[in-house]
């Protein structure tokens, strides 16, 4: 419950944040803090410097792109996303955000935080992977934009290198694609035991599985049941076992949630 000593800074510009992050080894961005703070309480991780991103108005914007897609600042809270009228560009985002944790956590937790912490049970990583969204990363050497495949590196690890921070999430316009999400949570809206997001366009499904590996597992198949099941079986998943599910059970659930996500998308 008690954090180790840590230094703290709350810059007011992204440049300032990048400067702080890149000039201090062991500096970590602090977004909503709904994951990082708890890991620090356990002292399972002890950053030397916390760079609080909460004053970066630039990262709180929600806007439509020219082509009808969506740009979400990394510091947009899950509650803000749920309430935003612009979010109906890809309604699945708000729909899934509303399933994350609880009101208090959604009020504080951010999109960037959920994506960057990349706990295998998080909701958003598979969603951004399925939607083909891109993440924009700002660092001392400027800005780059990466796809989900490049972005998710491991548990709690992403392409955001020390000294960098994620600034925004860009979601392409639906353009006739439809999205779905399915999960098996512990109880109602508890932590996910297994989850999956899917985007279906012209009968082609892009599926991203959560909870079964260190990073979302992305698969492609046609939207037919047999094809989806085949695609998941073909993925040779080696999911972790824990108190909520054996690896066998997770492997089975992966097939179920993949199919349900695709069916929701296919409507």
């Amino acid at each position, binding site marked *: *419950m008690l954090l180790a000593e840590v230094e703290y800074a709350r810059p007011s510009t992204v440049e300032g944040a990048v400067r702080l992050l890149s000039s201090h080894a062991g500096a970590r961005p602090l977004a909503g803090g709904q994951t990082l703070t708890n890991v620090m309480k356990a002292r399972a991780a002890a950053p030397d410097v916390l760079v609080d991103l909460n004053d970066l108005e630039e990262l709180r914007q929600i806007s439509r792109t020219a082509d009808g897609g969506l740009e979400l600042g990394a510091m947009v809270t899950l509650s803000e996303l749920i309430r935003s009228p612009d979010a109906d560009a890809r309604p699945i985002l708000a729909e899934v955000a509303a399933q994350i944790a609880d009101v208090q956590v959604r009020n504080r937790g951010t999109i960037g935080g959920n994506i960057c912490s990349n706990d295998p049970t998080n909701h958003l990583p598979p969603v951004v992977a399925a939607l083909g969204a891109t993440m924009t990363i700002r660092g001392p050497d400027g800005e780059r934009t990466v796809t989900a495949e490049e972005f998710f590196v491991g548990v709690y690890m992403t392409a955001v290198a020390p000294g960098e921070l994620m600034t925004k999430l860009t979601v392409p316009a639906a353009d006739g694609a439809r999205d779905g999400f399915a999960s*098996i949570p*512990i109880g109602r809206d508890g932590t996910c035991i297994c989850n999956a997001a899917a985007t279906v366009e012209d009968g082609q499904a892009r599926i991203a599985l959560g909870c079964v590996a260190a990073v979302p597992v992305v698969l492609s198949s046609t939207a037919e049941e047999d094809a989806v099941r085949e695609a998941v079986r073909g993925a040779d998943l080696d999911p972790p076992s*824990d108190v*909520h599910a054996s690896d066998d059970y997770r492997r089975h659930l992966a097939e179920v949630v993949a199919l349900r996500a695709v069916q929701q998308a296919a409507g």
Partner: protein
Amino acid sequence: MSETTVTPDQPITVEREETAPGFIGVNVPRKEDKRLVQGEGVFVDDVKRHGMAYVHFVRSPYAHAAISRIDVSKAMAREGVYGTLIGEEVAAETDPFFQIAPPPAGELKDYALAVGRVRHVGEPVVAVAAASRELARDAAELVEVDYEPLEPVLDPEHAADPGAPQLHDEAPSNTIWQGNFDYGDYDAALAEADKVVRIKRLHFHRFSSTPLETSGAVVEYNRGTGQWTIHSNNQFPGFAIIMMAPALKVGMDKLRFVSQDIGGGFGNKICTHVQLVAMCLLARKLNRAVNWTEWRTDQHTANSHGNERVFLDVEVPVKADGTMLGFKARAIDDCGAFTRYEPLGCIIWAQVTPGVYRWRNVRLDFTQVCTNKSPCGPNRGYSRMQHLWFTERVMDIVAQELGADPVEIRKRNYIRADEMPYETPNGCVYDSGDYARCLDEALELIDYGSIDEKRRDAESRGKLLGVGIGSTLDSGTNNFGQSTIVNPELQFSGNNEVATVKLDIFGEVVVTLGTTPQGQSHETTAAQVVADILKVSPEDVNVRAGHDSYWNSHAGFSGTYASQFAVTGLGAVKGATEMLAEEIKKIGSVVLGADSPDDVELEGGFVRRKDNPEAALPFMACGAIVNANNAVLPLEYRDITLNCRYVYVPPHQLPDKERKYGNLTLTYANQIHACVVEVDPETGVYEIVDYGAVDDCGVRINPLIVEGQVHGAAAQSIGAATHETFPYDEDGNLLTPNFYDYHVPHALDMPPLKTTSIESPSPFTPLGAKGMGEGGGAGISAVGSALQDALRGSGKPVVTNSSNPYHRVWELLRNPEESRALVEVEER
């Protein structure tokens, strides 16, 4: 909206008539609420003292290891660190805790900190005291402890195997206690049976009620008087003092236990005497107040868990008509690394030997072993819950295997209302109850009549629907004499609780209790009882909040545990209040010139002459006369104090140690629960869609408070049946050390709880009331029962575990044969 049949349609208001208050049975609003809803309760971690030190425990990362070196020098060098305490000091300054077990296990050494060896992950090894919470933890990380890991014992079923590692040199084969319980004539019953149902293994899992407030203490030491003041949330100070005083080598009066508000206990706060002794030693060593806050992860890894229990080689002789003649089984109970309250659990279960059933022939071989897991202790439904779950599992498995209707076969085997009071084969006496009627009410709540329709509807949605039934006997007002059955040398028996009621100089009625409530509303119900006897309103009765062992209302068994306040606590309140009423009448008769106290009566805060209501004396005057103007009293009345103390002692007798026979407890409240589940056959994920609980605890002092207990107990058993479990990995690490992975029900998880009640007054208690609050176990049985029913069309799997998270249900669906292999029916 969740339906409740007890809650009135309007917000509760005190309904009373001027002349006859009659507050017993009325939903009087709680006296405790005003402070609690304003955040003005005083919980242990709210207590602060000048210069107080914060204590952090260095805990074992190993399940089993020898400690080869402890070095606190780096921690001591840290600025702001006041001091440390290590096992060697504890061993030098204290005696090991008194053990309830007989030798050899009774010789095992249990100290406030690990001495030479750690026996479970999370066991406190070093205590570090510093100027702030954070500093204490920082310094704790600087303490160096070298461990030599030893092989842990984790599987209770193999703890006693030859060659298994030993936890305690004093407990050979890791066996704490073993005993055979043989009642009726089991062999004759077996010979008489038409069918014999055998079940290889039933498993009741580890979990705990995890009170939202974790344990803690603020301990002060007074050098001048040599006494400690212990502000804590320990829920059984009577027991704690008996354990701590000898360990600290001081008289009991040197330990003052104080508590006001306690954030839930459920039994989990009975065994904190271990950490409290460490606090006492530190307070004395540092000569300053010390604070200990147990964090959630500490609470899960090192606080008392509910006992895990396995039932092996179960055998049930059954007659052709479905009458069960009894059972035979081998029980192995896992008490964890230390015996803090154990092996009492080895006998407590026997309070409910046949459960709610007319089973006359019982043969149980009961063994308790220790393992390298968190020590066990009482947990809501303590030891009876495990056994009652076993009786209900037996009932459902036999019903399924014989193709009998689970409702009919229960009614055939239930003890009947006309048999009450009913003596069980081991000499316990069930005071009152009507189980069949409770079952009918419960089935009514879940609309059992239309269940086939619902089944079809569920099928049409691709779901499997099941109905389940469970029961609990909430036995209360323990006879501590049962402890002599586990250890004949013990000198405990009976039970007691005390209360004082006084009339103060300005006429206030002041009540003190010996109990330590954790949400059970004692201030309110005590006031209701006092109000009825003194003929005043509960608002006029001032019940002191909390517990202080320095008040004159502390008895040997004082505390709040084991479903007994309505009997022992209120029994004491009633006794003391009646004494006070008599004294007030005496004063009144003198002052009002009546011939005898019988000629006056109490009414609305006055004592008045029956023959002339105009002649009345206010309570205030009585208080003033006795306390400040007593020369006016005739000499023969000078012994009146208007400060009455009464100790309620239940009519217990010594049990027969050899036969393990006798009445082990006074009252038997009962609950019958029924629930409906819908299972998704593809995933094993299920939802409880309907739930009914019927409670019978005799006379209900405050129905709304009773109903609240029923709701809470049901919620806890639903949690235990679904996701709450304390599993360990092969190294002895707890896999659910906090609320991340230990999922307790939240508001969206809970089904609508429908409750109702019947009242079968106890013939044995002062108010016809029975202790209650531990009735939840019924839910664990009901959920498992419903799952087995839902899955019957999928290969008839048998539910043999009390813990049924989704993955286990999926395994049952995927491989029903595995569970079926545990059951066989022998036709005679």
